[in-house]
Structure formats: structure tokens, C-alpha cells
């Protein structure tokens, strides 16, 4: 039996993805809208879902809208933005109780889908544009959201690494948009953007839970109908020639240094060596048995965290660690040594098997949550491939040491970013 069964139906202008499972007490609905990341649209797209979720024509104030959701057994609604490769994706997620666990028989899934249609398609309109007051309020919140990254030094250093590493490439854009563009947004240009997004974006609707598939298809077909479209496809990955490693040090009044190193992996989801890369990352820095954790933390006692993380669609890997300012050289040295060891195949069969086992475990655990299911399945939408989770698990098991060494030798260090204390560099 497959570990995960997804049924996909072509609907009018979008795809409906259904995963039927009895393991949850709730049903989950996720609506995704995807388009290329561009400097012109990035801030509009970052703002739009927040405006849509704050009120609608039927629920013209946030209080009314949220009261309705509370009364619907605390149905949750949240929106978020993600950057996957060079795409920017808006998600609207709704989780609603399954009434079979309640004494009240109200058909909650249907109500929740109607509610999604309401906020997406029936916005709070004033003079043929979004209501100005809402837009202004959400612009203010967006500015705070953009600014708040500065206050979280781990997120900040990660964002700075990406900026430094990608310079003029669209991937350097931040998922929440650009501070300097917020003021120029009006209810008029945002409304025009909204209409364009509904017309051109790639649209996907996920429904996960103990649901009647035919019924969901019928309700979705009635509530959501869009023009057919050919979604814009861009190549996420381009080979870049790296001459020298770009090193950036920045000073701030902080107590712990944040070391972030970016690598180009030159491999993306859908490539035949993607699974080898995933295992590479696991041996190198993904887990508490990995080389980075053992050597930076356990052996050298330099850090509390030292890990690596992959971005599957842009083909990058990032190492992050929090260290004393004066341990910079030592930490960078250890990280480079570990990468060299990987490239030389200096890891045991035991490390390889151990890593396969934990990644297998991680993937199976991910699909124990409905959000996890959507995230795993959505990789296929982003890459326009069709890899089932069973295939993923199966292909990963076949990866050999030679495959990993080969993929390791494609990986190139691009940028080192270090956030350090004030005056440290002068000492």
C-alpha cells in the first residue's frame, strides 16, 4: 500500500488535490497561488493575502469575520507567503473540526469551503477597489513584519546571507517584500494586482481529511471557477561561476556571533541526483549525528547549534551556527574540513545507513500532519514533475556512497556571512 495517495483533478483554472485519511479529528483546506518572484510584484503579493483575510463583503470587519470562525468551532484561518525557487507563493490555510467528533451535526467542511470562497472571491470592495482603511492598516502591519526580521538575529543573518549571495538575482528578494515599496501601494493598484493574480497565477486547492471525495469535488466545482491558463514557468536554476568566496562581516551590538555560509549545490528537486544530495545534507549537517553537530558542537564545544539546511528548488544549502565572536576562524575551519571530508568520501557506511534511516523517518513523520502532506506534495507543483512519496523513499534507499561523493563535488561555497559584535574586527 502506498504511504500517501493523492488524487488530482483538473478543475476550471485550478487543480484539486485530495488526500483521504481517517487519522485526523479535523479537515484541512489549503489554497495556493504561485507566480514568478519579481521585484515589481513582490510587495503587492506579500500584502494581498493579509488584506483578503481581514474582511470580506459578507464580513466587513475583522471582528465579524473572526466571530464567524470562532462560532464555527474555532476554525482557524491563516495566510502566509513562501519563496520556493524563484517563485513566490501565497497560501490560505483553513483547519476545521470534523463534526463526527462533535454533538452538533452542522456540515463544517462545506461551511469552511464556502468561507474560503468568500474571502478569496468576494472581497470587501469600496468604489471598485479594496476598502482603503483595510489596505492602509495592513500596509502598516506589513512594514512592521518586514522590520521585525532585524530584531531576530538568526532570521536576520539568514536573510542577509541570501541578499549577499544572490545580489541582483530575483531570489535575493525577501518573501515579505520591500520596505520602500509599501507606501506606493494603493487600494487601486492592489485591486488590479488581485485581479491579475486570479487570472494568471497557478492555482491549487488541497483538501486533506476524512472527506467524501465526490462531494468535495462537487462543492469545489460550484464554488471555484476560473479562466483556464498556462502558468508561467521559469527555470529556477542557473549555473553560476564562482571565482572567489564572497566574505561579508557585519557588526551589531549583540552577544553571540551568527555564522551563515551559503553554498550552491547545482542540484534541484526533480534532478536524478537530488536524493543523493538530500542524504549528503543529512550526513553533513542535517541532524544531531551529522558531521557539523559532532565536530563544531560536541568535539570543539564552540556552539549550541551547528546545522545545514537545503533549499530544494533554487539549489542552495546553508550552514548556520551561533558562536563566540573570536571563534570565527576556528568554526569556519572546521566547517570547511567537514565539507572536504564529504568530497573525499570520508564517511562510513554506518553514517550513510543511519542518515537514510532518519530521513526516511523524517519524511514519514512529515506526512503525519496535514500541513506536512501539503508541503511534500507541493514540491511537484513547483517543479512540474510527478514524484510520489513512495518513489522518493524508494530512490533514496538506493543511493550509494559514490553517488554522494559525486554530488558533494558539485557543491561550491559561495558566500560567508558573519554577524559579529561591535568593534570586534578592530581588535
Amino acid at each position, binding site marked *: 500500500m502506498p504511504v500517501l495517495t493523492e488524487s488530482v483533478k483538473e478543475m476550471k483554472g485550478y487543480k484539486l488535490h485530495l488526500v483521504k485519511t481517517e487519522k485526523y479529528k479535523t479537515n484541512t483546506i489549503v489554497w495556493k497561488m504561485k507566480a514568478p518572484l519579481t521585484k515589481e510584484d513582490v510587495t503587492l503579493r506579500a500584502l494581498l493575502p493579509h488584506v483578503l483575510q481581514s474582511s470580506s463583503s459578507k464580513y466587513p470587519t475583522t471582528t465579524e469575520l473572526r466571530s464567524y470562525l470562532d*462560532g464555527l*468551532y474555532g476554525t482557524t484561518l491563516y495566510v502566509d507567503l513562501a519563496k520556493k525557487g524563484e517563485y513566490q507563493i501565497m497560501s490560505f490555510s483553513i483547519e476545521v473540526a470534523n463534526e463526527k*467528533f462533535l454533538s452538533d451535526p452542522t456540515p463544517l467542511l462545506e461551511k469552511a469551503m464556502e468561507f474560503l470562497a468568500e474571502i478569496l472571491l468576494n472581497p470587501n470592495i469600496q468604489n471598485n477597489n479594496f476598502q482603503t482603511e483595510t489596505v492602509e492598516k495592513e500596509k502598516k502591519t506589513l512594514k512592521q513584519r518586514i522590520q521585525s526580521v532585524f530584531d531576530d538575529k538568526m532570521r536576520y543573518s539568514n536573510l542577509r546571507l541570501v541578499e549577499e549571495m544572490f545580489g541582483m538575482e530575483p531570489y535575493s528578494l525577501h518573501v515579505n517584500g520591500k520596505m520602500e515599496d509599501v507606501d506606493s501601494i494603493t487600494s487601486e493598484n492592489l485591486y488590479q494586482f488581485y485581479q491579475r493574480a486570479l487570472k494568471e497565477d497557478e492555482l491549487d486547492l488541497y483538501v486533506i481529511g476524512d472527506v467524501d471525495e465526490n462531494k468535495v469535488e462537487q462543492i469545489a466545482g460550484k464554488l471555484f471557477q476560473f479562466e483556464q491558463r498556462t502558468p508561467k514557468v521559469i527555470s529556477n536554476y542557473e549555473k553560476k561561476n564562482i571565482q572567489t568566496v564572497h566574505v561579508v562581516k557585519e557588526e551589531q551590538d549583540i552577544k553571540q556571533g551568527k555564522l551563515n555560509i551559503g553554498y550552491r549545490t547545482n542540484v534541484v528537486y526533480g534532478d536524478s541526483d537530488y536524493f543523493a544530495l538530500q542524504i549528503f545534507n543529512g550526513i553533513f549537517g542535517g*541532524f544531531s549525528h551529522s558531521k557539523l553537530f559532532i565536530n563544531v558542537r560536541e568535539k570543539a564545544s564552540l556552539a549550541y547549534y551547528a546545522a545545514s539546511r537545503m533549499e530544494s528548488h533554487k539549489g542552495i544549502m546553508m550552514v548556520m551556527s551561533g558562536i*563566540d565572536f573570536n571563534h570565527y576562524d576556528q568554526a569556519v575551519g572546521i566547517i570547511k574540513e567537514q565539507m572536504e571530508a564529504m568530497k573525499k568520501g570520508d564517511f562510513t557506511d554506518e553514517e550513510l545507513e543511519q542518515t537514510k534511516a532518519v530521513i526516511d*523517518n523524517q519524511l514519514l513523520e512529515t506526512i503525519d500532519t496535514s500541513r506536512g502532506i501539503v508541503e511534500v506534495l507541493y514540491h511537484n507543483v513547483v517543479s512540474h514533475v510527478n514524484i510520489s512519496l513512495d518513489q522518493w523513499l524508494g530512490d533514496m534507499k538506493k543511493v550509494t556512497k559514490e553517488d554522494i561523493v559525486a554530488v558533494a563535488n558539485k557543491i561550491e561555497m559561495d558566500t560567508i556571512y558573519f554577524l559579529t559584535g561591535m568593534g570586534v574586527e578592530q581588535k
Partner: protein
Amino acid sequence: MKKIAFDQLQEELYYEKLNNGLDVYILPKKGFNKTFATFTTKYGSIDNQFVPKGEAEFTKVPDGIAHFLEHKLFEKEDGDVFQQFSKQGASANAFTSFTRTAYLFSSTSNFERNLETLMDFVQEPYFSEKTVEKEKGIIGQEITMYDDNADWRLYFGLIQNMYKNHPVKIDIAGTIDSIAKITKDMLYQCYYTFYHPSNMLLFVVGPVDVENTMKFIKENQDKKAIEQQPEIKREFEDEPNEVAEKKKVLEMNVQTSKCLVGIKALNQQLNGEEMLKNELAINLLLDLLFGKSSDNYQKLYSEGLIDETFSYDFTSEQGFGFAMLGGDTGEPNRLEETLEKMLKDAATGSGITEEGLVKAKKKRIGAFLRSVNSPEYIANQFTRYAFNEMNLFDVVPTLEKITLEDVKKIASDFISEERFTVCQVVPKK
């Protein structure tokens, strides 16, 4: 073995108290890939004054030692337990809170071997001077990481404002200076006092065979000759009702200010049903007053005093408790004044309506269903409830019984200006 069925939820829970005093709970979950297990001791950062096992006098241990012990338990003579778990395809972790230390793993294969590893590593300590010294560097970095974390400093600053004597005011990880004093002998002393099975709870949730799992656990425990232990003697100094400090402003390297308003709960010795009813009523009260559908929330948001980081929470354990509300703000002082005024109005019953209560209850019931999708939530929360003699699965029936009068009474008892306190983080000038 006792079976407890929850028909409306379609869940069954199995329980047995073993000969050595260990409480074991198993909740089978069909359809899930992973099994999740937690092995928890009722021992946290607040337990810093106690009579060590086999001694007669009280002793006081350095701040941060419970957390330090948690880190060190993973290290054995022949290596690191993390390694062993990952060889068996499991992911392991641990955490220390004010009142508990929990060790846990999740796995989708080799469940029994992983369960054995969990029980054995927690019950077979190995501490050496050398590894204790090495850990000081790692935990030192963990402490420094939190020093730069404005939200953590704000949260802890508020708790420190509230408590004059109670050890809840001590940072869970301790300080660089306090952990410097920790020795391997102190770790053994704490370990043998608090890690007796009679002070612990094992919870397993996942697609398991209940009978076999219980048998496996019993055999493992019976093999270990563990002698009976008398009740642990802990000591806490008296704590006044009023807060220690009314306001604290921390200057940090941030761009956006933060403000939290706290209410210290009356020195509570509640447990069981009373404690559950009390905490659910306060949670309903906070939902009614500050939930996203409340008039207060709307007012705060449209005036630009709060953003999406706004949150509220009530924490309650035997001996201490507090509510806190706030978040990022452009105007910390005005947010503080507005929240305090809203709270004072609520103490008189203003804004507490039957309609609002019905909505708040529905919201909590839905939230409970959502939570029981999560094996982690069930195991962690069930343990917390059990240590306070409450039952997690009583949440919905207890919620249903709470009346408008209960909520109004809670509002007038709980909300009192002398127990308000404020902590702010503001940009460094």
C-alpha cells in the same frame, strides 16, 4: 492494566502503575506512521531546594542544574545517545521546563528498540568531570543565544518582575556564572533524588500493540533493581501576593519595541478538577477579552497599537501562575495603559456576555480537537496534566460546565491592579 474510553473522541487510553511506582500510559493511534514516547520526571528549574536522597538536611543547588542534567544524560561512556537513536531511525530530543524534564523520541520503525534506548539511557546516568566541563561551553552558547533573543528577554523579564522569592524567576538554563559551579557529584545528587520511577511518567502514543508494549515496558523495569523511595521533600520560600517590580524597560538592539503586561495569579495551591476549571475559565476569559473576534482586539489593531505578534497566555502550576498579553508595538507605553484599562474594566464584568462565552467555548472545543491530531501535544500535555492530578481528556466536559457566573467571578478575583506588572523592550538609544 486499566482501559479508559473516550467515546465522542473515539480514543482509548491504557494505564498501569508499575511495581517501582512508574506511571505508564499508552494511547493507540491508528493510521499514524510515527510512534512518539516521552519519559518525564517531575523535576524542573524550580526544584532547587530539596533534601537529597539519603540525607536529612535541605540543600540548595546552582541555577540551571536541571537543564544541565538533561543535556548530560545523553552522554554515556561509549558515546552519545543521539547517535544510537539515529542508527535506529529515530529522532530524539529533550526539554526542561519550570516543573518538568522530558526525554522523548519519535520513530516510524524499530519502535521497541527505541523505547528500550529511551528507558535505559534515562535510567543509567554516566557523568564525568571532563564531559561536565565540556558541556559548559555548549550551554554557555545556548545562554548567549537567548541573551540576544528579545522575545525571551521580554518573557523572562516579566516573570522576574512578578516573583520576589519563588524560583520560577530563575532562568531555566541558569547563567554562565551559575553553571560554572556545577560538578558531576551535584548532578548525581539531583539525579538520584528526582529520577526515581515513582516521580516519573512514561507516555506512548502511536500505532502500537497495547498489550505487547505494556509487557515490554514492565520487563524492562523489572530487570532494574530499583529500591522504593520515600516522598521527595522540596522547599519554596513564601511568596507575597503583590508583584516584586511594577515595571522594567530593557534596552536592546532592536528596531521595534515590545510590551507585555502580566498578571500574577494569587499564590495558588490548586490541583485536580479545581485547577482545571480555574485555568480553563481564565483561558475563556482571555479569549473573550482579547481574542481576534473581540472588540478590544479590534480597537488595539485599528489604533495601530498591536500587530500579528499580539498574543496572550495563561500559565499555571502548583505554587505559581501568571497571565501575560502583548507583543510588538510602536507605542509601548500607550499599549500598556490601554491593556491595563481594558483589564480593569473586565474585572467589573464589562464585556463578558453569554454570547461571547458560547463562542469562546466553541473555539476552545475546536482547538482541542485540533490539538489531539498531534501525538506530541497529547504526550506532553497529558503529562503536565497528570503531574497536577488533572486529566487532559476532561478538558471538553469541563469547558462545557463553565457558566457566565464562573467567568465573571474569575474576572473579579484574578484581575487585580496590585498584581499587574509590565516589561518592555525598546531600541537602544
